[in-house]
């Protein structure tokens, strides 16, 4: 039984297929990178897994149970958390309250209120936000906001974490900090499925990379295999180039 499995997933908008007959299997543990040119269907795939969208046909299984068709909050409670490409925080409440909500409403663990508060404080420390705990989320800069969103996702105690372009827009030192955090999250046993445009980051972090183009999987393998894959190179360098 795979940890996360997609069976012939198709998602159409009107007549256009954003994801076409996509099957994939992901095992628990490690970092899986998802890459592809603009419009390849990466964010759509994340939306399908997290429940924002329902597949037109096909199904998605998590730990052997069907999750496609469930509402996002149900999927969250089963242990899948996500961040958004454009940050979606609760701007008018404080940073710690943002995280606390994730902790309380995430995967149910029968914790008391104090436990949730402790968990929140730990996450704030982990992501270096302890000094900002009582600041309204909207008053943070965009990098801090991305980290708060990550903290909120982690607070729901996910087994699978979906990251949608966490690194995009970060400067080099912030990028290396974020990469360190991602590695630490992986060490905690959380499986990470990340969409990213920054190729260097994906290639160095991922244990396995899936490449999408026009909603179809064109390659799947270790970063080394992917960087040598002819189809991938063609996709990225244009159809005509001769390598």
């Amino acid at each position, binding site marked *: 039984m795979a940890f996360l499995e997609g069976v012939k997933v198709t998602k159409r908008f009107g007549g256009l297929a954003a994801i076409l007959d996509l099957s994939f299997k992901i095992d628990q543990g490690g970092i899986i990178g998802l890459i592809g040119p603009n419009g390849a269907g990466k964010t759509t795939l994340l939306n399908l897994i997290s429940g924002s969208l329902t597949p037109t046909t096909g199904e998605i299984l998590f730990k052997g149970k069907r999750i496609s068709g469930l509402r996002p909050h149900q999927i969250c409670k089963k242990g899948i*958390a996500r961040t958004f490409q454009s940050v979606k925080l609760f701007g008018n409440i404080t940073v710690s309250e943002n995280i606390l909500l994730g902790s309380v409403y995430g995967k149910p663990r029968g914790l008391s209120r104090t436990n949730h508060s402790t968990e929140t404080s730990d996450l704030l420390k982990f992501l270096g936000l302890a000094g900002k705990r009582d600041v309204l989320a909207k008053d943070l800069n965009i990098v801090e906001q991305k980290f708060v969103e990550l903290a909120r996702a982690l607070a729901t105690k996910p087994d699978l974490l979906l990251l949608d372009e966490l690194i995009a827009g970060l400067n080099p030192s912030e990028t290396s900090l974020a990469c360190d955090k991602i590695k630490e999250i992986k060490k905690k046993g959380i499986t990470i499925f990340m969409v990213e445009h920054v190729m260097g980051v994906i290639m160095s972090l991922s244990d396995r990379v899936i490449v999408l183009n026009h909603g179809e999987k064109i390659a799947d393998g270790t970063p080394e295999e992917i960087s040598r894959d002819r189809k991938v190179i063609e996709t990225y360098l244009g159809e005509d180039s001769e390598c």
Partner: protein
Amino acid sequence: MEGKHSPVNKLFFICFAWLVAATLPFYSPAYVLLSITSILMYVTLTVSWTIFCGPTGYISLATATFFGIGIYCAALLGSSLPAPAVVLCGGLAGLAFGVLVGLICLRLSGFYFAVFTFGLSELVRHSVLWWEHNVSGTVGRWVTGTSITQAFYSLLVIASLSILAAYLIRRSIYGMALKAIGESEEAAEHAGINVVVYRIAFFAISSFFMGMAGAAMAAKFTYIDPNSAFNPLISFTPVLMSLFGGIERDYGPILGAFILTFISEVLLSRFPYFYTLIYGIIFVVVILFMPRGLAGLLGSGHQHKFMDH
């Protein structure tokens, strides 16, 4: 905690205010009691409106519907049940209709939510009018009497309960979740919050109090018809009052309802012909010079912290 706002002082103040209010019928003239009753009614409507609409930022203009349903409940049941039961029935009818409305407008937000709730309450008003004209054959009905003292006590209890409920919800994780829903429904959903259930439940809770207020207030009206029971102004007033008072503080809506009802009662008795003129001017001046409401003017205040409690 700073000295003069310490919790003990606050509690003392609340108990004192409640005692004064509770003994009011024994020494105050009837017209004062009457004004205080309508103040309590608007406090209830405004506070219960902010339970859902305050944190989520949705502007519901369906208050008149729930209030009117409460009134009609009292008019239908008034003679056959004891007063507290009538009030409770009014509340339950409001609650039931609140669930229905909450369900219907799940997909709407912003302007569309406001216009839809308004249209819905007008739809109800005209449907009841049509029903009375064509099916039951009589427009309006008499409310078999309870005394004004009874209406006063019912509303005192309902207002207190609604304030207590609003206070507790605001400070609970639910209040925070509602705020999160107001900020981004999508993100709230992905953080594990069941947005659908929360929207419906808290909308219905505020409708519950509105229905009770209507049922309790019916005693004051003696005669009702759809136009007075479902008066669209009842929908707008709580919005105005809570924004006037300021929704960022617990006391804002109470203060707003209190002051505006008081002003309008005074204006109505002193200057019956210029009443709305002066009311309107006060309004415009307040918006121009206090865009954050009274509470925004009084305390530059940061909001309370959930974590403190």
